[in-house]
């Protein structure tokens, strides 16, 4: 009996995988009905399920797959041609097979009376009976079936593997996958992640001890341990990475069903399905992505006649694109539908009380689109059963933000809508800023961090003001509400002569958190906290520091809610506009002894100082060893045609620029950093030359605007 249970479990896992493939195959098949390759693949899957179910005495499943197989074998042999009713019939067979498998998973039997097998069998039999080949209807369907089957696949009957050896059609690709991978229980992987985290902590403690030790052998051994532990950690994190294609595999079916239901013609394009992210995140983004796809079909792409009238292709295009960008995974869902009209959105938002007419009037078109993510907003004029089920875009946004991601939408009325979802690569490990308060350490996710500001002496009285008990900071012309971490945590803040402000952003809220100490940034492992603390929205979890002590992770949105920092009246428009309007954050640099140049701040990953003696040569290029790799250097002055004076001290100042794929980091050597400014750049062509796109007046001084691509190209690293 136990053996049976094991076989059934194995059978279920395999069959579910096969069914996913089947969905894709069937949808493909509908598009190119003649593909014998697809037909064979589908036939094999159903055949395998049938064979095994017969072996395991799952009679209803066997009966169903038997009829399906008969129909498929005729399709494969060219006796029947694929038609929409046949596709429909086969898809409903797949659904019923899935339902039966679920039933088997629950009860071990396929006898659940709630699953109607007979009607589906009847439909399939009717399809078989309608077979245009003359002699077939005379003979009862099961009769001719055994003939082709043992002939083509003699080895299959008792073989639970989806791809049998002797299959000649396309064994290559699928076999390698089967041969080179092992199925592992997810719990085991999670355990490994925990254990390796523990190992890393132990390693840290040991390293600290061994540093002062005179025992050379111990020092060497602990250094080896250090290396091995780091690599182990990296490898284990990788085992949790899965391609996003896994959650996409169901979308062709969703799109197909929906477009039929809605009377749309849609071409689904998917790109980048191999893009990997942590499996826990994959689970978390599945529903939001499906919702966005449904939205595009329901509200975006128009019916064919409307499209024709608008002079577009009757068939709409829905494209999904996934790629890595600066340590994040970006998923774009783009349609070429009717787009979103800001005027309609605005009107609806006012109507539903999401914003006041006054607020709306002050908003930019782009921010108006962002209103669809506000709670209480749903664009569905009539609630349809496709996307208007009370689950609005606000839920999509909340779910994505919960895992540290973000979502934004851009649209051109009449041309289409693009929704961009950004998700961190991994949930388990995030970069965080560690701050100190009341003798304890707290971690703030870097994703929420905007900047750090320290205000001392006279500036304190000039820039920090008290508005009826609410302290605010004048920061580059804007008022930033200040929140004291000490007071938030229930203590009292010390009236220091200096103030350290961590500027934080969450949703539409930006505020400054005053902290006592700033430690450093580090990669932290996010761990859940017990349900005794779940009601405290200020904490997102906890982590373990290098010394083994626990530190709480602050939840920025939760703190904002706790202390009541809301999106102030002018704030949302003002804030959201910060990224969208003409203001650009620039890093202003000094090069060539007093000349000024500026880089977009967004292109700057880090600022570093290296000792001059660390600069080595590789070929003609200058490089430094940096973060376990080699960082090529470019002298900015030379790259923009100025005399190089960056070598005057013992240290060189380097701006680290990372292109999309983390491997392409480049160090740009400058004299020094002057300032970070946020300005409206009024660029002029004056001074345009190699490496410089032009110049602009920044802080009353003429400043060269660096053409980053050209400078990076000089390093020999592909930009």
């Amino acid at each position, binding site marked *: 009996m136990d053996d049976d249970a094991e076989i059934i479990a194995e059978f279920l896992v395999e069959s579910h995988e096969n069914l996913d493939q089947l969905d894709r195959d069937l949808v493909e098949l509908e598009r190119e009905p003649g593909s014998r390759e697809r037909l064979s693949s589908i036939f094999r899957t159903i055949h395998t399920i049938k064979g095994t179910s017969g072996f395991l005495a799952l009679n209803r499943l066997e009966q169903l797959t038997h009829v399906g197989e008969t129909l498929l074998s005729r399709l494969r042999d060219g006796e029947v041609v694929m038609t929409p009713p046949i596709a429909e019939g086969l898809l409903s067979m797949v659904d019923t097979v899935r339902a039966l498998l679920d039933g088997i998973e629950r009860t071990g039997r396929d006898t659940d009376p709630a699953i109607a097998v007979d009607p589906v069998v009847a439909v399939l039999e009717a399809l078989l009976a309608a077979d245009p080949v003359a002699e077939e209807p005379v003979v009862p369907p099961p009769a001719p079936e055994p003939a082709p089957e043992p002939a083509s696949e003699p080895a299959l009957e008792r073989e639970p593997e989806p791809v049998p050896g002797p299959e000649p059609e396309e064994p290559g690709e699928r076999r390698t996958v089967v041969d080179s991978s092992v199925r592992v229980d997810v719990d085991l992987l999670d355990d490994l992640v925990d254990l390796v985290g523990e190992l890393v902590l132990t390693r840290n403690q040991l390293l600290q001890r061994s540093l002062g030790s005179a025992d050379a052998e111990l020092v060497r051994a602990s250094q080896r341990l250090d290396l091995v532990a780091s690599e182990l950690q990296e490898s284990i994190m990788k085992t949790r990475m899965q391609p996003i294609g896994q959650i996409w595999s169901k979308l062709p079916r969703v799109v197909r069903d929906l477009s039929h239901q809605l009377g749309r013609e849609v071409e689904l394009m998917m790109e980048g399905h191999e893009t990997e992210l942590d499996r826990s995140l994959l689970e978390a983004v599945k529903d939001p992505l499906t919702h966005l796809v449904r939205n595009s079909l329901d509200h975006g792409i128009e019916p064919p006649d409307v499209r024709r009238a608008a002079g577009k292709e009757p068939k709409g295009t829905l494209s999904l694109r996934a790629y890595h960008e600066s340590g994040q995974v970006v998923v774009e869902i783009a349609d070429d539908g009717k787009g979103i009209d800001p005027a309609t959105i605005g009107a609806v938002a006012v109507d539903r009380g999401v914003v006041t007419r006054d607020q709306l009037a002050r908003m930019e078109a782009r921010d108006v689109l962002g209103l669809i993510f506000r709670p209480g907003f749903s664009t569905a004029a009539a609630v349809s059963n496709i996307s208007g089920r009370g689950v609005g875009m606000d839920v999509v946004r909340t779910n994505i933000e919960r895992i540290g991601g973000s979502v934004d939408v851009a649209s051109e009325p009449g041309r289409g809508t693009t929704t961009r979802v950004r998700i961190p690569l991994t949930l388990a490990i995030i970069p965080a800023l560690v701050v100190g308060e009341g003798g304890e350490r707290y971690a703030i996710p870097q994703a929420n961090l905007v900047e750090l500001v320290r205000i001392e002496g006279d500036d304190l009285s000039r820039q920090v003001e008290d508005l009826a008990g609410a302290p605010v900071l004048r920061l580059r012309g804007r008022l930033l509400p200040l929140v004291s971490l000490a007071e938030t945590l229930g203590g009292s803040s010390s009236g220091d002569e200096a103030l350290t402000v961590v500027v934080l952003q969450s949703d539409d809220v930006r505020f400054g958190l005053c902290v006592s100490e700033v430690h450093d940034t580090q990669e932290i492992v996010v761990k859940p*906290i017990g349900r*005794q603390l779940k009601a405290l929205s200020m904490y997102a979890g906890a982590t373990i520091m290098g010394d083994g002590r626990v530190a709480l992770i602050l939840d920025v949105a939760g703190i904002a809610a706790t202390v009541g920092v809301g999106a102030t009246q002018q704030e949302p428009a003002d804030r959201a506009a910060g990224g969208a309007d003409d203001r650009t954050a620039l890093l202003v640099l000094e090069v060539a002894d007093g000349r000024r140049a500026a880089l977009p701040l967004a292109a700057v990953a880090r600022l570093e100082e290296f000792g001059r003696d660390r600069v080595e040569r590789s070929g003609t290029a200058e490089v430094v060893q940096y973060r376990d790799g080699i960082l090529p250097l470019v002298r900015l002055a030379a790259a923009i045609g100025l005399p190089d004076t960056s070598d005057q001290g013992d240290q060189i100042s380097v701006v680290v620029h990372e292109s999309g794929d983390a491997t392409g980091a480049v160090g740009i050597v400058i004299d020094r950093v002057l300032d970070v400014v946020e300005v409206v750049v009024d660029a002029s062509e004056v001074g345009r030359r190699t490496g410089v796109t032009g110049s602009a007046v920044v802080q009353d001084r003429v400043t060269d605007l660096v053409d980053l691509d050209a400078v990076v190209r000089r390093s020999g690293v592909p930009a």
Partner: protein
Amino acid sequence: MHTGGSPGTTTRTSEQYCTFWVAGLFFGVAVDEVQEVLRLQPMTPVPRADRAVTGLINLRGQIVTAVDLRVRLGLPDRSGDELPMNVIVRSRGEVVSLLVDDIGDVIDTAGVDLQPAPTTMPRGVQDVVRGVRPLPESILLVLDADRAVDVATTPDNPGGTP
């Protein structure tokens, strides 16, 4: 395996208890609910949490909430120089530490029936006790670990200590 301790269960298959003292009271938790017993661990306080939550400890990489049973049961606070012990229990899939005064032996109570707790005990204690087993030398209060670790946390609780 274990039943998860539904309140209606008056007798349990396991009659072995891990015992400890809290403010002079003799408590026991069924051994299959106890993971381990530890000395006082370095603890990170959680500002604004319920007063019974003493802090978070790092148990081999897992973050465990420590609940002070004296506070939880409404008993007088421990004096400053008494160091509590951690009784690590499993409760509804989570691991929680109960801070107690002192640890006793594991005892087998076979043959001693579980009786309802006397209604004259303080409410705070009655709430988390499944019943009592009167042993020859002492009376064992059988703790319901699930209820003991259930700390109502109100987000507006002002500060850690009153």
